[in-house]
């Protein structure tokens, strides 16, 4: 039997105290914003929705109530091109009947409407029985009650809008000082999501996720050419203090100078080079060639019609057998990482955040999982719990397996990018994310960047343009022969990783160090005919 609403609130406050003491996710000591408790109306409606789903025949049900706020400011040159502040609020209910899922949602937070959503979810579950292939079985999880908030010092939505606009316009002004730079865009996207999850097994958690995403791009024109440069201002699960730490107005002139310099850069000679990737570029290569390849739903074919399957399949032939890269390569999945985009205390099934190795000493070890996936590989991995990778982008979307933070761990020696350059006879160094594309089984990829440098005899000798690198995932990772040490670790990430039908976005971070890859194919992307 579930506790009453008053018990929930009391239990929630107790759990919050336990987490603040650092027991659950190791919160940063500088955190100054406390985790809010669930909205009483949301709890009441969620409880009634659960009851309605159970009464209608659901063997399991979960309800998420979410309030999502997104503030965006966009500027160009000396003007603001858009200011908006949007909120979305509603309830989604997921049900199991005879092992079939159903999901329904509504933005009308009234008793009648949320009860109707519960009945609709159950009817969707029942309709799905007509084409059932496999009965859903959920791995066990202990019920949990608590609250959590992204560790931040200052809520970005509480910062006055005029301060934000002033910061962006000062950034643009600095960039426009550079000769040839005619166009500048800068912006801020600030997100706050409050999500309450109740399950029919007794879980009741409320989490507040805060994320900030600054951006800066400029374009220089000269003759018949134009070249752009985008700085890699990684979005983070942090507060306003992160935006301030980037010192955008102080750095913009330096960034803009790179766009102007690109106009004069030499167009690369296509060929085979040793490739040095800075973390600002490598994080996305990790995302595409490791992060997506190790999603269990892809390996099992559930994503075949959209994002694709994976070469890391079938699981019985891959776990413990596939050599992904050299022995010093360790790749960790982690939803407990402070400051990261997918950092949480519990996933959208109430599973506690987890940290585990996907690749250990170069060998593939484990996948990303949700509760219903555990049984599919349990005998191969010996892992009986979900890794906590269930996520839905909003109250109106059903949760499914999404990528946690996936990071390349630093090497033991304290190697810097300068050390790697000094050790390279003939190479190309790439900074920041450019164009990216990879096939639907994650073999063949092609990535570009924002700033490219020619390396000769252990030195950077000049800037290049029109550069992209193309490789096969396993060949590429096995050609890695040098990586940076702990001092060179940096965390990149993105707000908008798409997967699923209907397509949903996920925010995810990737930490990594600079690395060198031998004999990689470099293309020249300029083309006139």
């Amino acid at each position, binding site marked *: 039997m579930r506790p009453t609403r008053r018990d929930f609130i009391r239990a929630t406050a107790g759990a919050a105290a336990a987490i603040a003491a650092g027991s659950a996710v190791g919160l940063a000591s500088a955190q100054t914003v406390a985790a809010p408790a669930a909205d009483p109306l949301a709890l009441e409606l969620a409880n009634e929705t659960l009851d309605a789903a159970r009464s209608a025949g659901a063997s399991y049900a979960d309800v998420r109530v979410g309030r999502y706020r997104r503030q965006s400011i966009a500027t160009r040159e000396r*003007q603001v091109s858009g200011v908006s502040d949007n909120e979305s609020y509603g309830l989604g209910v997921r049900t199991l009947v005879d092992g079939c899922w159903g999901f329904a949602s509504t933005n009308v937070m009234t008793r009648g409407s949320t009860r109707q959503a519960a009945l609709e979810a159950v009817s969707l579950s029942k309709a799905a029985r007509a084409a059932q292939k496999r009965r859903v079985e959920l791995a066990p999880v202990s019920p949990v009650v608590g609250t959590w908030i992204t560790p931040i010092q200052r809520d970005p939505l509480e910062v006055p809008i005029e301060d934000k606009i002033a910061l962006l316009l000062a950034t643009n002004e600095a960039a426009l000082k550079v000769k040839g730079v005619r166009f500048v865009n800068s912006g801020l996207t600030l997100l706050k999501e409050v999500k309450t999850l109740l399950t029919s097994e007794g879980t009741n958690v409320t989490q507040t996720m805060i994320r900030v995403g600054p951006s800066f791009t400029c374009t220089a024109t000269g003759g018949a050419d134009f070249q752009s440069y985008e700085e890699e201002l990684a979005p983070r699960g942090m507060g306003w203090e992160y935006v301030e730490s980037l010192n955008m107005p102080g750095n913009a002139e330096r960034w803009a100078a790179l766009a102007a310099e690109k106009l004069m850069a030499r167009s690369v000679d296509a060929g085979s080079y040793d490739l040095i990737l800075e973390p600002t570029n490598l994080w996305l290569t990790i995302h595409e060639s490791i992060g997506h390849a190790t999603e269990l739903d892809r390996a099992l074919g559930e994503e075949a019609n959209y994002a694709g399957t994976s070469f890391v399949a079938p699981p019985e032939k891959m776990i413990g057998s596939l050599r992904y890269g050299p022995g010093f390569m360790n790749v960790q999945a982690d939803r407990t990482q402070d400051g990261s985009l997918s950092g949480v205390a519990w996933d959208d099934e109430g599973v506690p955040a987890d940290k585990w190795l996907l690749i250990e000493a170069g060998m593939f070890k484990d996948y990303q999982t949700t509760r219903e996936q555990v049984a599919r590989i349990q005998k191969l991995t010996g892992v009986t719990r979900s890794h906590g990778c269930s996520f839905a982008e909003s109250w*109106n979307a059903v949760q499914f397996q999404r990528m946690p933070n996936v990071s390349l761990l630093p090497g033991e020696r304290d190697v810097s990018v300068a050390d790697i350059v000094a050790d390279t006879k003939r190479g190309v160094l790439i900074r920041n994310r450019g164009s990216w594309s990879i096939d639907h089984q994650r073999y063949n990829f092609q990535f570009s960047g924002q700033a490219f440098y020619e390396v000769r005899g252990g030195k950077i000798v000049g800037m290049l343009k029109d550069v992209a690198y193309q490789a096969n995932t396993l060949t590429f990772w096995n050609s890695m022969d040098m990586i940076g040490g702990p001092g060179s670790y940096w965390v990149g990430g993105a707000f908008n990783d798409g997967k699923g039908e209907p397509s949903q976005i996920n925010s995810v971070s990737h930490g990594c160090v600079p690395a060198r890859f031998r004999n990689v194919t470099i293309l020249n992307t300029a*083309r006139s005919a």
Partner: protein
Amino acid sequence: MQSTSASGSFVLSREEAQALTKRVLSLSAADETRVTVTSERSGNTRFADGGITTSGSTSDTSVTVTVTFGRRRASSSTNVLDEASLKRTVDLASRLARLAPEDPELMPELDAQTYSTVDAFVTATADLDAEARAEAVSRAISAASDAGREAGAIFAAGFLEANARSIAVATSKGLFAYHRTTDADLSITARTPDGTGSGWARAGARDWTAVDPEAIGRVAAQKAVASRRPEEIPPGLYTAVLEPQAVTDLIPLLAGALNGRNADEGRSPFSKPGGGTRVGEKVVDERVTLYSDPADPALRGQPFDAEGLPIRRMVWIEKGILRNLSYSRFWAEKQGKQPTGPPLAGGLALVGGTRSTGELIAGCARGVLVTHFFYIRALDPRTVLQTGLTRDGAFLIENGRITKPLKNFRWNESPLLMLNRLEDIGRSEPTAAGRLMPALRIREFNFTSLSEAV
């Protein structure tokens, strides 16, 4: 009002939407106010390994308020429709607008406009419920299993969705625009049990009854069977026959290049060296015409844009000649042009040929047949150069016949440049809601590397 959008089958009617916009407009004391109401209801069914994996339904109604004080403007939105929330949203937008700096490019809100009448709402699509979707999915899976039997047990994965949506835009200066629309889309990927073959098919339309689930299942499985054990040919320049779905993946990428401001500012392939644009010049093969038209029965697009500006027929490229670029209201005024709204607002059609895809294959001495593309990303805005991969069925054509399946390719190619290497253009057909596209035969399509992906 709330109960209307919550659990009924339909989206907000014209009268309901107008009542809501009036209510919100009455809460604003700004110099000018614009209210946009979007109401939608969606149902979907997803399947893999021949069984339904998830199915869902959602309904939502949101209100976006854009307020202007002098030359300052901001917007705020909410989907909580009680009086207090609407008031809070109007107040928040007003507060943000007062804090925003003056926008030198701000255009006043529009007053009353007239729009083309577009009937894009089909009840059969809006009414497609969970049972009907499950039944259609079962039929598609059965058809795929039957058509793929010679390869063993076909793995069928796919997605069916049906959406109904209405949008209303109103301003404090008397503008009111309303449009409602539906779309349905079914796609299937069929994979052979040996893991060497994969096929795909899709159909999308405003009208669900125009979609044939059995045909989609059958074609996907036939392609999967035919694509087994693909062979390798070296990357390079090959003639390519692009099926209409592959063309649908590429041609809308021209939209960015059609932006008039970018062309005027010297950062578009349609900029003229030394200043001005290439309007009036031949930019692609003379058999190619590209247009948008919400009133075209094959497109049935939205007849107004986000500001309530009427969207009319726009011929971007006529018989190879660049005729028009897209202009925002501000840039149009500055350049002495007519504003057009964004380029894809009224759907997109590429026309110019009469032959079937089969005839384009028959006319090909040696080339690669492409089912569709995947993961397309821009490489160079100067040429609209893109990279991407072929997927779910690439085949070698020799002497007018498909002779063997091929491994997938990565390619680096531009939808603009390739239209200058046109060998033949097929008969245009509806490929998705708001898209009318033909098959194309392109000379020297740039396939750059091989992919092991099946």
